């Protein structure tokens, strides 16, 4: 995609609030943006290093809980006589804590799976997510367990015009999600279009060959895991401060599945893939909501996903790119043909 198209899309996204007036539409956009950021982060691991993290929602949830807890304040009784107390902190600070804690968890999972690839990596990540969910459910002193963390401060709390009304709060949330999404996109883009990204792709394509030319594949896998987890954590934090209530259900497997579907249908290993997938599978539930039971919705998703993967196994974006390339080649070819025949005609005229 060329730079102009990119800027046009950014400009379009920035001006959305000029014509969007409906709270509900904002809600759809914001949730879609949050999950698209999650999908982008998953794509870094799944699409570029080739490792499927089926516990990706763990990082999302850890980000949500970390940011909520730090902004609400909490106390932890470490020993009988000592209690670790954290006073409520500003939301921006909590947000950065979420990035760091999720990133550390990504580092941990990356290290844990430093030799496991493929199916074993999937199992490590699923187990990790399950453990984290159980902790969130059972460590009631800290997380309130199933009672959920309530009254989480909204993202831009303290900014005066934010307090004005529900709609302007949504506008602010929309811009926060957009800003985080753009930064995440830029980070991922710079990584994958560099020597670092080549090392990740080398791991995906041919690990032995990568090692033989001196690529420390484990290092790049861990780096991808850290970055991916931190971005997923950022999405989780955005989610927490937007819906303002977090319970262990943020760790539901279905959220991971949603992100995986977005990445695979859009096109894993492409920058635009998760955006396209996020757009389709972010809007689709809202379009079908009024007409279908949730169970039927999931069947429709599944069917759509299977259709996409069946007909476009690489996903939508690579298919479009290929189509575009062949079309251009054909156009160049025909242009050359006509200019050649023009040349001939002129000669005849002379």
């Amino acid at each position, binding site marked *: 995609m060329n730079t102009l198209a990119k800027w046009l899309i950014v400009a379009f996204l920035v001006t959305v609030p000029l014509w969007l007036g409906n709270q509900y539409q904002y809600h759809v956009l914001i949730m879609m943006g949050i999950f698209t950021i999650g999908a982008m982060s998953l794509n870094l691991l799944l699409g570029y290093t080739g490792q499927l993290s089926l516990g990706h929602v763990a990082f999302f949830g850890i980000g949500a809980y970390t940011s909520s807890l730090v902004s609400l304040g909490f106390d932890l009784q470490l020993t009988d006589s000592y209690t670790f107390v954290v006073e409520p902190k500003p939301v921006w600070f909590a947000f950065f804590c979420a990035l760091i804690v999720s990133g550390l968890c990504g580092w941990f999972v990356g290290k844990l799976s430093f030799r496991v690839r493929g199916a074993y990596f999937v199992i490590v990540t699923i187990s990790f997510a399950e453990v984290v969910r159980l902790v969130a459910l059972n460590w009631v002193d800290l997380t309130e367990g199933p009672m959920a963390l309530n009254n989480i401060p909204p993202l831009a709390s303290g900014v005066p015009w934010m307090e004005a009304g529900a709609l302007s709060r949504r506008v602010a949330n929309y811009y926060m999600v957009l800003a985080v999404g753009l930064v995440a996109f830029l980070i991922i883009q710079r990584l994958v279009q560099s020597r670092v990204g*080549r090392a990740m792709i080398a791991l995906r394509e041919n690990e032995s*060959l990568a090692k033989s030319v001196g690529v420390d594949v484990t290092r790049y896998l861990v780096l991808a895991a850290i970055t991916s987890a931190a971005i997923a954590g950022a999405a989780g934090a955005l989610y927490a401060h937007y819906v303002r209530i977090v319970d262990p259900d943020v760790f539901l497997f279905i959220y991971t599945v949603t992100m995986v579907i977005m990445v695979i249908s859009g096109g894993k290993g492409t920058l635009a893939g998760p955006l396209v997938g996020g757009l389709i599978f972010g809007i689709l539930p809202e379009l079908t909501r009024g007409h279908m039971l949730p169970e039927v919705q999931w069947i429709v998703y599944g069917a759509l996903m299977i259709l996409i993967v069946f007909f476009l196994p690489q996903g939508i974006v690579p298919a479009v790119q290929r189509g575009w390339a062949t079309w251009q080649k054909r156009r160049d070819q025909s242009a050359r043909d006509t200019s050649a025949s023009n040349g001939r005609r002129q000669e005849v005229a002379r």
Partner: protein
Amino acid sequence: MTLHMTTPATTRQTVLTVDNLAVHFGGLVAISDASFKVDEGEVVSLIGPNGAGKTTAFNVISGFLAATKGVVAYKGRRLNGLKPHQIADAGLVRTFQKTSVFGNDTVIDNIMIGLHRRGDASIWQTLLLTPKVRRQEQALREAAAEILDFVGLGHRSNELAGALAYGEQRLLEVAVALAAKPSLLLLDEPACGMNPTEALNFRNLLGEIGRKKITVLLVEHNMRMVMGVSDRVVVLNHGRIIADGPPTEIQQNPEVIRAYLGHGPKHA
């Protein structure tokens, strides 16, 4: 000038030493006891019948396999226990017997991955896309094009590696290894599957590589090529070294001839 010319060839430094190497796979003894060395700037061929243990020796030297016994050292540094990428960092780069490229990447991108060791941009510089990073990327791209021209694949640079003809893929493998800037290149049957013309070109390429002061350890079944390019030939049979010497000597060696004709007296 004359001073250099009087330097006798025997002062060549030994770079790779393999000492009493043994590799067992459970009960199977792939290498029983092998010792050999490679001097700087030499082209040494490691030959032997199928299953002799040549690839196994490569796997141990390049860190893909742990030795059961014995020591591998490069330029005085012990390699046992190092990971493959650390061994590549020491200057030893190997290719694989089975064709091995990054099939879904373009030819030039294959080389760019091979050039990994020549880049050094930190993660922060990469994220900030500093001028240094841009310059380095440009320089790497030029180096990649140069390497492709060197091996004669310049005209293929934007094709997918997986779409190349078999012989070209084999050439690309060598190019990827060369990109990693080896001081010792380990080639495992690089000409296997090449047609006679390609094999001949490849022989010339080996000569060019030698002129670049890259030491070469070659595993190859094509005896014409082996005898033509090697300074020395090491013969492995049933996990044991049975001969080590200049090509002319090896060709006359009765034990080698027996091993290759396959009806020598069975050893106990």
